[in-house]
């Protein structure tokens, strides 16, 4: 009886005959692939596979289907984590430097539904920190971000609201999110969101950011719980002002603190510990 070995093909375990080569495997599973990745690196030559090899076949330009992407995420994140994220809904108020980066991070990890709100358009001055492209200047941020998110993960359910958020419409727009994110620029709006969301959805976690300007050390941005359902990210003191402008690296540090806090909250973990 021929020896059998187990390899990984697109993150799934597959049993094959010992001595099977890469090109033989390709013929069997994806004959139209034009890129072969073996153990994380492109491999143009043929060679025999060994137990534990990790193989990916890619046809350039082909968008993976929902099932394939989900299998990849489940393998990468574990099936349990993926299942939780897939059924979760996260609201993001403000789609600037924080909000656009948070949305992309959550789309990449497969959060099932994103509720996004911002009234603004993409401006040239945004490009030093916000996740938009130069050819999107003038577009509504909701439209531009939707297009970008669909290029990252087309299987996320995206709901957008191109409106100025107020105490009156926050409860309705974010009525059924599991976790809420505050990602505004204006200080007054940050406090408004805390008051209106926490009043309408008591007990639902809210992750806010305050104090993230300039280029102070990354470790000055922290995540801390304040009270029962409020998580505060930032250094709590550094405002955007002449001389301490908002810049992609530190804004990104804060945004990913927020995104990771959201992830931990969705998984039932302490965002601070």
């Amino acid at each position, binding site marked *: 009886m021929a020896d059998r070995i187990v390899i990984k093909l697109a993150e799934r375990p597959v049993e094959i005959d010992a001595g099977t080569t890469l090109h033989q495997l390709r013929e069997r599973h994806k004959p139209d692939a034009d890129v072969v990745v073996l153990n994380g690196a492109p491999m143009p030559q043929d060679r025999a596979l060994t137990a534990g090899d990790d193989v990916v076949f890619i046809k350039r330009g082909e968008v993976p289907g929902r099932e394939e992407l989900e299998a990849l995420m489940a393998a990468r994140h574990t099936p349990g984590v993926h299942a939780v994220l897939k059924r979760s809904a996260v609201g993001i108020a403000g789609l600037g430097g924080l909000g656009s980066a948070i949305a992309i991070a959550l789309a990449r990890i497969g959060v099932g539904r994103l509720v996004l709100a911002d009234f603004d358009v993409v401006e040239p001055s945004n490009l030093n920190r916000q996740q938009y492209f130069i050819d999107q200047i003038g577009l509504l941020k909701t439209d531009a971000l939707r297009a970008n998110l669909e290029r990252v993960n087309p299987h996320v359910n995206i709901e957008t609201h191109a409106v100025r958020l107020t105490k009156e419409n926050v409860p309705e727009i974010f009525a059924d999110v599991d976790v809420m994110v505050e990602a505004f*620029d204006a200080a007054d709006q*940050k406090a*408004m969101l805390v*008051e209106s969301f926490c009043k309408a959805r008591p007990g639902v976690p809210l992750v806010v*950011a*305050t104090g993230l300007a300039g280029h102070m050390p990354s470790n000055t941005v922290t995540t801390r719980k304040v009270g029962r*359902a409020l998580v505060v990210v930032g250094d*709590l*003191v550094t405002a955007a002002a002449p001389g301490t402008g908002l810049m992609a690296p530190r*804004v990104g540090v804060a945004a990913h603190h927020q995104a990771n806090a959201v992830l931990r909250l969705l998984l039932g973990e302490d965002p601070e510990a």
Partner: protein
Amino acid sequence: MRITVHLLGQLRHLAARDSVSIEVGEGATVRDVVMQVAAGYDEAFRAIVLDAQGALRPSLMVLHNDIPIDKASAPRLREGDQVTLLTAIAGG
């Protein structure tokens, strides 16, 4: 009745302490608590929490017993209550 006020961020920095215990009368509101705390510190502290007309600044975030509240509301304060003050900082 005695109320503990926790200070975060700029307020903690300006007060050089992370909490203060104050005595307030029955029926005191959150605004009364903030005014009383602010009276104990300098103009820089007061300017962060109060506007020129003496109203609570919109950027001030207030928690009552660990729960964020609408500053316009008037939750009844009780002996031993905890109030947390944090100012939102522009930038995002």
